[in-house]
């Protein structure tokens, strides 16, 4: 075995050693918890993915042992490799927190927020992201973007308005199917996923676009409006499939199989790609050998209360410090020290209700 060079990298004051060529994001995921930046477009199993959504931006406060200069801009941790002695700030950097809040706002700007009727609700990465990093209200006062509707056939439902243009589905079609038939058309804020000529997407592995889609843009048509994911019990199951590994997660209610997905790890990434046949056509319990309950290891609605006490999310008994890997809770910043918008001469407590920039302007509208 050839010797693998190890690099020392410190992320949010936690130091680990990783092989050369590891990205900052992967190193951070090895530490885990809050230190791992969120990623909406990067997908480790899809070559070329990442760099686009900008949610995983981090601050590199020291480039490396050799060249300790900090990097001038925040970098996409998914596409930046660690250097030996590198120091990275994720949640310990106010700059990162601020930029990330901005990115979340941008991603939600034209998002329809139709979660109540969206099949992705409960397992949506954008929901999680906005819960963790977003604001409660929007500052966007314009009509949200709409697109002409496209039909992608009997398996896949496209809601373009929900799309955040992560390009993952394009990579899936490129890298897993034998012919890519959909792509990103148009440009800028009008870019859309489409086939241009109303083509059905029914390539053998194309169903995986549903699993990689971080939002509800591409959902399972055979499961559409059938149930909410948090009412379903995920069960690992397998079958002897001639085209794929046949290792899946079944989503049951009672005896009934509502949908079939690939098994996903704690970062929401598919463990084994599955074929269309397994996903769309095998909806009988008798099609499958059931292995047992599936642990959903995500901080999301979908992980709540499935099998409390056995698998899934436990009812928390630890202190905040304990669940934060020994770190104390983040202190709130003194807003006056960091904001140019809120001048110190205005007594915040005297403002009735949430402060608005109008409060700080002499000539009110």
């Amino acid at each position, binding site marked *: 075995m050839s010797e693998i060079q190890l690099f020392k990298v410190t992320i949010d004051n936690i130091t680990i050693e990783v092989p050369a060529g590891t990205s900052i994001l992967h190193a951070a995921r090895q530490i885990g918890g809050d230190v791992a930046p969120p990623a909406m477009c990067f997908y480790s199993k899809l070559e070329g993915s990442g760099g686009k959504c900008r949610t995983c931006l981090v601050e590199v406060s020291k480039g490396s042992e050799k060249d300790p200069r900090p990097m001038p801009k925040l970098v996409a941790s998914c596409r930046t490799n660690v250097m030996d002695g590198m120091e990275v700030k994720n949640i310990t950097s106010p700059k990162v927190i601020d930029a990330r809040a*901005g990115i979340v706002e941008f*991603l939600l700007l034209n998002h329809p927020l139709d979660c109540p009727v969206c099949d992705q609700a409960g397992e949506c990465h954008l929901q999680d992201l906005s819960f963790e990093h977003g604001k409660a209200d929007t500052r966007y006062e*314009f009509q949200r973007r709409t697109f002409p509707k496209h039909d992608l056939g009997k398996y896949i439902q496209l809601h373009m308005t929900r799309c955040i243009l992560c390009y993952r589905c394009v990579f899936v079609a490129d890298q897993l199917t034998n012919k890519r038939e959909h792509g990103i058309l148009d*440009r*800028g804020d*009008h870019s859309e996923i489409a086939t241009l000529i109303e083509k059905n997407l029914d390539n053998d592995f194309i169903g995986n676009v549903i699993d990689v889609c971080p939002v509800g843009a591409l959902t399972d048509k055979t499961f559409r409006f059938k149930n909410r994911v948090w009412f379903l019990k995920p069960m690992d199951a397998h079958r002897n499939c001639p085209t794929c590994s046949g290792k899946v997660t079944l989503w049951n209610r009672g005896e009934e199989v509502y949908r079939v997905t690939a098994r996903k790890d704690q970062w929401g990434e598919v463990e084994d790609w599955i074929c269309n046949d397994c996903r769309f056509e095998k909806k009988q319990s008798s099609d499958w050998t059931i292995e047992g309950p599936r642990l959903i290891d995500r901080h999301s609605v979908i992980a709540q209360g499935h099998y409390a006490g056995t698998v899934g999310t436990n009812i928390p008994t630890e202190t905040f410090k304990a669940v934060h890997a020994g770190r104390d809770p983040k202190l709130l910043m003194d807003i006056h020290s960091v904001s140019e918008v809120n001048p110190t001469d205005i007594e915040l407590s005297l403002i009735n209700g949430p402060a608005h920039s109008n409060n700080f302007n002499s000539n009110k509208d």
Partner: protein
Amino acid sequence: MGRKLLLEKAHVPGIRSYEVYRREGGYASVEKALKTMSPEAIVEEVKKSGLRGRGGAGFPAGLKWSFIAKPEGVPRHLVCNADESEPGTFKDRYLMEFIPHLLIEGLIVSSYALGSHATYIYIRGEYAWITDILEQAINEAKANGFLGKNILGTGFDCEIYVHRGAGAYICGEETALIESLEGKRGNPRIKPPFPAIKGAWGRPTVVNNVETLASVVPIINLGGEEYATIGVGKSTGTKLISACGNINKPGVYEIDMTISVEEFLYSDEYCGGIPNGKKLKACIPGGSSVPILPANLLLKTAKGETRYMNYESLSDGGFASGSMMGSGGFIVLDEDQCIVRNTYSLARFYRHESCGQCSPCREGTGWMEKLLYRLEKGEGKSSDIDLLWDIQSKIEGNTICPLGDAAAWPVAAAIRHFRDEFEWHVTHAAEAQTSNFGLAHYADPIHVPTV
């Protein structure tokens, strides 16, 4: 009268043809370089010349060349960036249209220096007729032994091809340009790797602006050291400035970088002042993405010193009170122009040209355009101004490529220097639809502390 190195012969009748260009001393640098110099020596000369990239970023060209990887058996490419699309900039068009052989000559020498046997000119799609002019020039050069196999018997082979774009400002960004050259959407690549390591078709690639590559000709002819004596400080050589907007003599001027902004704007040799006796209100000195400056910060720096037309002086004061040389697109606004409207127009441009790949730019540019439209139409709120400021700050530095910055800076600078004009659009909404905020105090001398 400043020294001219690029456009000196541009108006000789018939200079577009090989015969006249050659008779006027053209292609001498190819003979000198290929016959008497090694590729390394040319890179050295360009380094010595202090030539800075003329496309906008101003990165030292020789240094950029020295970064190119030279793996065994892998071809390298030089790509000329003729995707001139920055509003206010039309200097490359002028050079290619009037004296196309100068570019071809520069390309041959640069290709030799970099070891590129297939060199591409990526020209913006709209310059359709210039594509013909360039192809004609290439054919003539080839017919006379300056291109093709075994150039001048030196054993160096080189072909130049013109690749026409199809309408996308973003392709001026070098990795988007490479994507487009490869027949793809002009989505900028995520760096690293940089083109010098992995560029077109995964091969080491250098992308340089038209003017930069044309400047290699005088550098070789004069020698890098002599070239460096022209200009001042780190602004060496001559620079093409395309001047437009409210001036008497819009056009392309070659300046040596020692003249003052005031001289450039008001002397008859250059812009010839502002028409109809109007006063100067503001100026965007380096193409639409650089910060706009009010009259009182354009001619003098915040320290009260004369501002000159060069890289250092134009950026004196940073973004707080300075701007940038950028691509040399000098846009002048007279007292009748509305800053809000101008900013809206530019915001619309950047929204239209965003490739849509990364979220801050895709979403942020559209948001800024909508807010500016609302302010311009007198339907804005004063909080919109703070919001705009916040949006641009969230875009800047957080995008894949510099288009995000390019979209953010004009908005930031307009609010920074012209905030009261924006506020006036809110407080005097109806009035703003029929009249203009005018010159206001934007030309008033700035008090300079004596300490």
